[in-house]
């Protein structure tokens, strides 16, 4: 891009930044007004978890989280629609293989721990899922073509697991309970843990699949079926 133009844009953007900072200053100087924090903390004992962020994510604003998992699903479906994955890396040298053999189980165990601890301390499905995903990244770097993921048909189930279970719980609660995603107080803890587990698995496998970067290689049986479908 033209140097003068980029300078001009720079000046305009700086002015915008100054304006925004001034606006922010006037906002902070004014009365803070009502905030959601006291309310969120007050309702915490009824939410089924004792960690406020998890309560917001999976109870008060669970609908947002459901949709966020759908965004992740849209991304991986978009990636798959673009064609098969590029070929993987060469099988790694002994050092990386040994490292992968240590790190991957460690990441999975830590992920499980983070998932469990999310109910009452920092942690939860996203952090745990990210760890699972990074385990997949390391596996792919070490030469595993599919980043430790199963075949295509199973991957399809894995990436929908999070939204699927979430939505199913929500709809069942709407039909038999108080309303969509309205957990009964008694079972809230277990429902949240169930949803979080499915979400962790889905997030982990989706992130790993995104790193693979394309449609998984078809297994023998399903490839025949999809040919039928294509015909």
């Amino acid at each position, binding site marked *: 891009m033209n140097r003068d133009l980029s300078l001009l844009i720079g000046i305009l953007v700086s002015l915008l930044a100054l304006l925004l900072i001034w606006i922010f200053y006037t906002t902070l100087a004014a009365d803070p007004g009502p905030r959601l924090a006291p309310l969120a903390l007050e309702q915490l004992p009824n939410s089924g978890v004792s960690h406020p962020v998890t309560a917001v994510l999976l109870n008060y604003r669970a609908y947002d989280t459901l949709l966020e998992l759908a965004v992740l699903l849209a991304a991986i479906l978009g990636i798959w629609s673009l064609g098969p994955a590029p070929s993987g890396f060469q099988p790694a040298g002994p050092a990386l293989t040994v490292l992968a053999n240590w790190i991957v189980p460690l990441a999975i165990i830590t992920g499980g721990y983070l998932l469990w601890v999310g109910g009452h301390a*920092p*942690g*939860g499905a*996203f*952090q745990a899922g*990210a760890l699972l995903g*990074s385990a997949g990244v390391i596996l792919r770097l070490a030469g595993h073509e599919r980043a430790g993921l199963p075949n295509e048909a199973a991957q399809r189930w894995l990436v929908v697991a999070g939204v699927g279970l979430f939505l199913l719980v929500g709809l069942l609660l709407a039909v038999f309970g108080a309303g969509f995603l309205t957990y009964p107080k008694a079972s809230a803890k277990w429902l949240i843990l169930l949803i979080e587990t499915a979400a962790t698995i889905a997030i982990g496998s989706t*992130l790993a699949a995104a*790193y693979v970067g394309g449609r998984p290689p078809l297994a023998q049986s399903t490839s025949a079926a999809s040919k039928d479908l294509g015909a």
Partner: protein
Amino acid sequence: MSLLLFVFDSILLLTLLGLATAAVLSPEPRNAVMLFIAFGLWLSLVWARLGAPDVALAEAAIGAGIGGALMLAAARRSARRDNRRDNRRDNRRDNRRDVSCQDAQ
């Protein structure tokens, strides 16, 4: 707020802005991604200071970790493609030079 804390906050933020500027200004893709990962990790440090350990953890693992890994893979792929293309172009130029040499002889 104590002066010490103010200085501490300022250093945290200046480093953060410095890393972001460096990441944005770096023309070489792999360096830019490395700087971006460093920025993400530093950001998670800042968020931990602001009492948001959950978000700090997620930013380190997802934003800097997975996002960085994705970008790094892309930077490496495009670098490899550029190399291959440059090699091919060099080969072609060499061939042409060979031809012209033969013509001259």
